Structure formats: structure tokens, C-alpha cells
């Protein structure tokens, strides 16, 4: 993504540049591999297989507590992300993100924030079974979700927010590294617990296969994969542990109403029975 207004470096004062690193477990480490790549003039961390595995560990460690937080609490956290994104909008427009896309991204966080304590009522409920039983179905997060994210800010938000609002944690392979890491800074200054969202910059074709076959990843979102052959290969690798796989047939229009599917695709339904009687 081209930058439209990089600060001009003058002789009187040298600008302090930002180092673009990974976002794992709430921290901003360099790649353990020590590798970087150049993206739009910046040296950006090039995530390795080990970074991906570290990110899964962080996501798994964070998952029970995040899922165990009240839905009200998760909703407030997501709303806080919207607030922080709104406050930092200039950083994104400086990176070339159109202003209306930043607006849409903020609004998407707000939209999902509101879903946190409503999705269970829409996706679950009491089942009228033919017998003296109390029977209720409720959605639960599927666990750790590996995401190959689209490059745009709105695309990135549109895959992260529906995954985490219900209590999943994520390892996100990003394109557009400056936008992604700037979003990580938004997340880090909101109240999103470390490890709930982990962002890796680099080449997803290199890291995604390790996540697709990883035993401790529950679901794989392939929305950002633009090579059908690679998508099929990742899906095949995911079959080894029967991961839930999101594989949109055509590139989605992120400006449209997302509907429930981005959330429900990453939910399990648990049904509990109990007899009634004195």
C-alpha cells in the first residue's frame, strides 16, 4: 500500500521511524529468525514457522480466560477497540487507507461489539424435545483460529472481529504489514488481553501450511488466500485434524452486511439435557 504522506525528513530534525515487528502474546517481538523484508520502504519482520508456533501457544494460553470473560465484558473490549481506532485514524490515512474505509472499520468493530451478548440468543435456545427434559443449545467458541487475512484494513477487521467477539483467539497472517501492525498497536492500547489477537507479517505461503496442519489450531480462515491451489492445499492439510475451514468461493465484499456466518462458522453448538422431575 503506497504511503500518501510520509513525513519529510529535514536537516533540522531527523524523524524517529517506527520499527514494524510482530505482535505475539500482547508484545511486539522481532521474528525469532531475525529475518526482515522490505515493504514500501520499511524493514518489516518476516515471520517464521517458529513465530507461528509461538503465536499458537500465546493464542491457546489466552483462550480459556477470554472465552470465560462475560459477553458484556468482551463487548466493551471490542467497543474500546473502535474508540482507539477512531482516535488513531490519521495513522491509517497516512498509510494510504481511504478515510471511508477507516470509518467502515471503526463501525464494524462497533457492530461486532454489540453482538457479543446477543449471538447466543440468536444462535441457541431451548429445544422442545418429546420428553420430560430441559434441553438447551448454546454456541461456544471453537478455540484457536488461524486466519489468512486480506490486505485491506476493513478486510482485516472483518476477519478478526467475528472470530474474537465470541471468545475465540486468533493467529492472523497478514498482508499489508504496516496497516496490520498499526492495527496491532490499536489492539495493544485497547483492553484486548495479550494473545487474543496475534499478528504475523511476512509471506503467508510460508507460514500458513504450519498453521493448517497444527494440532492445536481448531479452525482455519482462508479468506485472504488468493491462490486457489494453495487454498486447496491448506484445506487438505487442515483435514488431518478436522479443522473447521472458512473458504469463501469468491472474494467477499467487505462493505456489505457480513451477516451471521463469519461468527457462526467459528462457533460450536453445545446441547445440554437434564431430566425434569420432583
Amino acid at each position, binding site marked *: 500500500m503506497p504511503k500518501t504522506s510520509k513525513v519529510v525528513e529535514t536537516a533540522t530534525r531527523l524523524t524517529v521511524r517506527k520499527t514494524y515487528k510482530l505482535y505475539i502474546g500482547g508484545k511486539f517481538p522481532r521474528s525469532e529468525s531475525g529475518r526482515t523484508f522490505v515493504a514500501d520502504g520499511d524493514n518489516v519482520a518476516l515471520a517464521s514457522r517458529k513465530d507461528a508456533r509461538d503465536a499458537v501457544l500465546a493464542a491457546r494460553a489466552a483462550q480459556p480466560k477470554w472465552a470465560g470473560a462475560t459477553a458484556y465484558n468482551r463487548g466493551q473490549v471490542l467497543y474500546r477497540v473502535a474508540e482507539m481506532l477512531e482516535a488513531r485514524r490519521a495513522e491509517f490515512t497516512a498509510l494510504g487507507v481511504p478515510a471511508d474505509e477507516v470509518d467502515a472499520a471503526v463501525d464494524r468493530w462497533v457492530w461486532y461489539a454489540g453482538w457479543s451478548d446477543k449471538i447466543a440468543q440468536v444462535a441457541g435456545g431451548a429445544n422442545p424435545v*418429546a420428553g420430560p427434559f430441559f434441553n438447551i*443449545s448454546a454456541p461456544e467458541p471453537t478455540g484457536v483460529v488461524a486466519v489468512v487475512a486480506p490486505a485491506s484494513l476493513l478486510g482485516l477487521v472483518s476477519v478478526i472481529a467475528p472470530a474474537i467477539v465470541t471468545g475465540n483467539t486468533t493467529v492472523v497472517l497478514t498482508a499489508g504489514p504496516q496497516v496490520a501492525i498499526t492495527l496491532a498497536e490499536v489492539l495493544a492500547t485497547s483492553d484486548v488481553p495479550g494473545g487474543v489477537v496475534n499478528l504475523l507479517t511476512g509471506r503467508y505461503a510460508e507460514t500458513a501450511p504450519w498453521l493448517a496442519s497444527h494440532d492445536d489450531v481448531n479452525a482455519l480462515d482462508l479468506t485472504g488466500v488468493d491462490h486457489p491451489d494453495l487454498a486447496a492445499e491448506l484445506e487438505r492439510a487442515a483435514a488431518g485434524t478436522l479443522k473447521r475451514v472458512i473458504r469463501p468461493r469468491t472474494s467477499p465484499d467487505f462493505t456489505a452486511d457480513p451477516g451471521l456466518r463469519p461468527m457462526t462458522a467459528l462457533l460450536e453448538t453445545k446441547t*445440554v*439435557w437434564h431430566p425434569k422431575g420432583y
Partner: protein
Amino acid sequence: MFEYAPAPESRSVVDIASSYGLFIDGSFDGGKDGDVFKTINPATEEVLAEVATAGPEDVDRAVAAARRAFGSWSALPGAERAKYLFRIARIIQERSRELAVLESLDNGKPIRDSRDVDLPLVAAHFFYYAGWADKLAYAGFGPDPRPLGVAAQVIPWNFPLLMLAWKVAPALATGNTVVLKPAETTPLSALFFADVCRQAELPPGVVNIVTGAGDTGAYLVAHPDVDKVAFTGSTEVGREIARTVSGTGKRLTLELGGKAANIVFDDAPIDQAVEGIVNGIFFNQGHVCCAGSRLLVQESLFEPLIDSLKRRMATLRVGDPLDKNTDIGAINSAAQLARIRELSEIGASEGAERWSPECPLPDRGFWFAPTIFTGVTQAHRIAREEIFGPVLSVLTFRTPDEAVAKANNTPYGLSAGVWTEKGSRILAVADRLRAGVVWANTFNKFDPASPFGGYKESGYGREGGRHGLEAYLA
């Protein structure tokens, strides 16, 4: 133990032909290459019928018939599709005695189960989904949900007709057409269902039944003109199907294996818990994907519970599936019996203590006495692998945290049981169990309105209830 006189159900209510063809496009015909296989009564090893093996050409014909039928079937008003399904439900009720006897003959399950569990649930499932056919816009999947097209459905042998109902009813209600492959060892009730469809005057091609073994199923799920694949069976085959389907854009639902924990706390009502444990593992000879095959007993309750369980097991009647007093019928096949024996021997050789009641078994047929293993650790293969037979592994725990950790220590996540009189504990434990169905102070209950399906490697998607519609809607 009370002595009962034999009380066999008459098999004269069912008329099994000597051979069966494939049900394609509304009529029966032989397979293209003339291959057949025999289906036997596992209680006697008597051959019940010869059944055609569907080869690639036959599957092609069945898929083509389903494709042709899809246009008009999906265009029917939902209310009309509903009436076909209501008809099917009624015919199943009317023929339920015949179908129950047939199911017990081909599968080996006790007539009490096929009569009182399988057949009532089959009819109820069609009734339930019939009612959805004209209400899909209200199901929460958008204002105008559309069917997917042709559904390839592959079902197991443990509940042959019930698994057919779980697959066919929601597919048809949502406007899809189907090609269904029943299991190789239990093809007959699906072929009788074809006759139910004929009696209901279901349009040709809406339901097609292709019989055969794994090759037929593999060809069907890989067929390029199939839009949806639904499979119930082992996790190993489920993985293969997921690989086959990857990259094709076909929708997939999988209902796979399990290794359910049945957790008994020391305040549980002991007699009810024992009944639940017995029902959990010995119902349907343990050929149940959601069977409570790992009993987790709180340490302080271990001795009285095991004593009581053994006393109860000594009263279980193993034998003739058609006898109305039989509790445990025949193991479905020689291959399954061999697997149960192998894992049981491994259990003993790994150091667990094996116990079965005195239990005379018939000379012919496939039989396995109800068995428990105590002293089982989490590392034992009988605590990790699905045995799919009447074999219970008993482990102990001290605290609720330990119970939950042990229950979740499996790649499976289909079902679980919790026994305690403390309501708050039920809710807290149920919350933390990674399983799609949690039975609290009960076990192995099923209902068409209740979603069923697994977490983790027990598969994905749900069958039953409003949730079950999603698998068949775009």
C-alpha cells in the same frame, strides 16, 4: 436374575427378497457390472439377501438422476415438499413393526431398541423436518435460503434407518435431492425406505439409494456433480473425506467418532447413575458414537459404584435380538467383533483389570459379553481409542477440575455425561466440557428437535433441530 420364557418377535411381519438392486430414479435395477454382496444376520450368520454393488457407472446414474430431479423438487412450494415428508413419516409409523424387525435382523440390535428407540425417532425426524419445509425463511439463515443441490450421504451401520432419517429428512425439507449409500453390513432398511418413498409417490430421483462398500462411498463423495457431502462414521474415514472434498467448494458435514466421559460425582444418585452408565455403554451393544465409554468416578464413590454396576451388569440379557427381553444383541459384524476383541486384549495386556459377568453366549453369530476395565489410566489405549463395543473403561478423579481435565483429554468431543445432585456443579462442569452434547443425570437421549454433533475431531456441523438445516442451505 429372573428367568423369562423366550418371547421372540415374529419375523413373519417382514418379507425380505432374495436379492436387491439399486434404487435409482424411482425404480430398482441391478448394478451395471452385476457385482453383488451378501448381507447377513449377525446373530445367526444366516444370509438375508444379496445386494447389488454400485460401481462408478451406477453412482454416475444416481447422481445424474438426483441432478435432474433437483430443479423441480427445489422449485416445489415448501408446503408441498412438507406434505411428501409428512407422508413418509406416516408410512414409517404404519410400517414400524416391519421395519423394526428388519433392522434387528440386519443389524443385530435388540427388538426392544429398534421398536422403542430407532423407529419412533425415525418417524419423528421426518415429522420434525417436514414442518420446516415451508418455514425456512424464519430459520435464521437469511430471508431466502436456497438449497445446495445434490447431496451425497454416507451412513454407518449402527443405526441404519435412523441415520438415514437424520440425513434425508433435512436435505429434502430444504429442497435438495440425495444419493445415499447405506453401510455395507446393513443395507436392507435403506432399500425398504426406497419402497416407502415409492408408496409416498415421491418424485423419481429425489431419493436414490446406492449400496456397496467403501469404494462406492469414496466414489460418491468425490463425484464432481455433488454439491454437498454428509458423512457419519469413523474419524479416519472422515479425515479422508475432508481431504477429498478440499478445494472443491463442496459443503461438508461430518459426524465422527467419540470417546465420551461419563462423570459420576460422589453425591450422584447411585442407582440412577448405574442405569445411566449401563445405558451409556451397553445400549446398542456399545455401537454408538456418543457412547459413554470412559467412566470417570469420584474416588470416594469408586467401590460402592463398581459393586453396584457389576450387580446390574449381571442381570443384562445377551442373546437373540428378536427376543423382547434381550438387553444386548449381536455385534454387527465379524470385523467389528475382531476389533473389540483386539482392543480388549490390549486393555488387559496394558495392565487394566478386566471383568465380565457370567454370560452364556450363543454358538453362532457375533457376540461379546458386556465388559468393564478398572485400573485404567489415561495412557491406556482403551481410554483413548474408540472401541465401538460393549466395553467400559473406568478411571477415577478427586476434584471437579481433575474430572474436567480428564474428560477433555481426548481428540474427540462428541458427548459427555455428568451425574451429581448439585445443580450449580452440573452447569459449571457442562460449561467446561468440550463436547457437543452433555447429558446431565441422563445419557443417550435423542430428539429431532435437539442438535447433535461434535467438537474437535468428532466432526463438524449439527444434525437435528433448527441447527440441522444449515448444513443443507446456501
